[in-house]
């Protein structure tokens, strides 16, 4: 699939696969489908989700009027990256196997549009290379189904999370 996301640089992605149910503490399953592509040393991850008011946590945000919380887009990016890194990658981008990466820094985020039940959002992320300490940067744009940008998020991850514990 070549993700036809507005403004995106076309990098052919593999067909989307269902995102696994997270095998780590997570507020909800924040992505439905994930597809991964590689080009010029960059991994590109495209993930989608339909906002459903019966998902965990959403009945409290807010009672009688559901809005998908901005932090759950951060969660969606985290789960998309985790799912992508679980898939096989080409030799030149082979990430060292080992501990699951987690967020160590929210470098910046802006939440620009409301996501309501029934909205389908798409996360389009670029995953940078890991450094010697297992850190890598991810930059993502999140689009609502009507093409409006819902969020821009830049995260830093690290294999094994923040500690060396």
């Amino acid at each position, binding site marked *: 699939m070549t993700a036809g996301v507005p403004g995106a640089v076309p990098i052919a992605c593999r067909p989307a696969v269902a995102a696994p149910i997270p095998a780590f503490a997570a507020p909800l399953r924040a992505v439905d489908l994930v597809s991964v592509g590689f080009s010029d040393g960059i991994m590109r991850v495209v993930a989608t989700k339909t906002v459903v008011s019966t998902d965990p946590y959403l009945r409290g945000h807010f009672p009688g009027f559901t809005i998908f919380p901005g932090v759950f887009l951060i969660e969606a990016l985290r789960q998309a990256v985790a799912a992508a890194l679980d898939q096989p990658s080409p030799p030149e981008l082979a990430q060292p196997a080992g501990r699951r990466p987690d967020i160590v820094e929210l470098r910046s985020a*802006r939440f*620009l549009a409301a996501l309501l039940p029934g909205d389908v959002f798409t996360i389009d992320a670029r995953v940078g290379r890991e450094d010697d300490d297992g850190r890598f940067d991810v930059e993502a744009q999140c689009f609502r189904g009507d093409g409006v940008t819902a969020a821009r998020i830049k995260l830093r991850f690290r294999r094994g999370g923040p500690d060396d514990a």
Partner: protein
Amino acid sequence: MASHDEHLDELRELAADVLEVEPDEIQDESDFVETYEADSLRAIEILARIEKKYKIEIPQSELAEMRNLKAVYEIVARHAGWPD
């Protein structure tokens, strides 16, 4: 007191940091919204950083006028009492 150019460069760096571009990408009269995809959240961040740095308060009503670096300089100069 710093010169006009020094102040302008300070503001350029501050805006560049918020807009997440390199300082030399910010032209004096390029519109923040059109050229650098700024939105009201970015504008608020720029305002807050300016106020903190120069110890001034800029009324919220002037936020909409901070359209480009030149306009920002003029507003800050007025409130900070910079000679032109």
